[in-house]
């Protein structure tokens, strides 16, 4: 079995990464998961968090908010609404997202409230861990 797989990270504005990797850690909606070559096919939505990529050329981090990931035996595609390379993500950017999320959470109807508040909580958690 091949020990690497294709990893793609795309956001609406650009494609951030496309490389061969050995493992990818993904912040899935129901918990973090690590995908390695030969993983069974999974489609999961993302919560705000860090995608940690291990490749033969070194490790990389990407910060993503909202989106989903498609995992198959020989590839992982992360399709994120907002994505930044870990090293140049600015706290201010995320804080903007957080403010917007807080507003929509307070405006959300009862049935959407849980999801919106979870999104806010995940963002806060992410911001705290960045220091």
């Amino acid at each position, binding site marked *: 079995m091949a020990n690497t797989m294709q990893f*793609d990270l*795309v*956001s*609406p*504005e*650009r*494609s951030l990464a496309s490389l061969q990797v050995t493992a990818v850690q993904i912040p*899935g*909606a*129901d918990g973090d998961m690590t995908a390695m070559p030969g993983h*069974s*096919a*999974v*489609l*999961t*939505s993302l919560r705000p968090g860090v995608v940690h990529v291990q490749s033969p050329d070194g490790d990389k981090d990407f910060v993503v908010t*909202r989106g*989903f990931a*498609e995992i*198959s035996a020989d590839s992982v*595609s992360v*399709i994120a*609404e*907002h994505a930044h390379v870990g090293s140049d993500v600015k706290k201010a950017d995320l804080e903007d997202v957080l403010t917007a999320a807080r507003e929509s959470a307070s405006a959300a109807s009862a049935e959407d409230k849980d999801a919106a508040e979870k999104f806010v909580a995940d963002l806060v958690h992410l911001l705290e861990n960045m220091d």
Partner: protein
Amino acid sequence: MPNLKDLKNRIASVKNTRKITKAMQMVAAAKLRRAQESAEQSRPYTERFNAVLGGLAASVGGSDSAPKLLSGTGKDDVHLLVIMTAERGLCGGFNSNIAKLGRARAQELIAQGKTVKILTVGKKGRDSIKREFGDNFVGHVDLSEVKRVGYDNAQDIARDILARFDASEFDVATIFYAKFVNVVTQIPTAQQIIPAAFDAVEGETASTLYDYEPSEEALLADLLPRGVATQIFAALLENGASEQGSRMSAMDNATRNAGEMIDKLTIEYNRSRQAVITNELIEIISGAEAL
């Protein structure tokens, strides 16, 4: 015969016009390149998104629990037309072509007895649509302050549309924009976004059996609203490239026309100048003969 000074002034003014159109053409060319680049860069996202969503929709779509965004409200009485045009003019037939397509669709729907609501994006389309369909007008999205359209702009528009959908304000939504083919060809296009329509992307995607996390339905319900934003974003980018392409060829034409005009006026100017000289000579000669 026009007098010499007038002709000279006109030549000078047409020359100035040519300078301006030439400059606009070059600016449009530079902007077109950028617009095309961003359209290019968003393509992987759009393609993957639609492939996944299409696969999901194909597997869940048949069931009764399918979200309304996918299956529709079961009626098609009220149509929302989202007409996307540019904020600025001087780009050939770009704005009027899109508006024309939208108007034709609106008239067709009204003739069928449907209710039509119109939302415009971009000032130029609003101006021409509002004149005719003032009563059907429900809103306008202003992008004149936006230098470069981003995904956030698309999200705002999508949120607006989805809020109206949740409030049962319409049954079917269609977006109108111009598809960029090349600098001389942009095709005004109508695309239905609610209920979501997908090109047949079965085969590969449908054949892979995925585990879904959370459930298939929850994932679909989460992705569909974003699909609307994605489609709007793609349309905005296409529109951006089309606008600049259209402006570039319009300004190229204008520059060429100005050049022709200058040539014609110069010939006329030279002829009149010669005529004046001949006249003066005749006067001098006949004056000398009279002595």
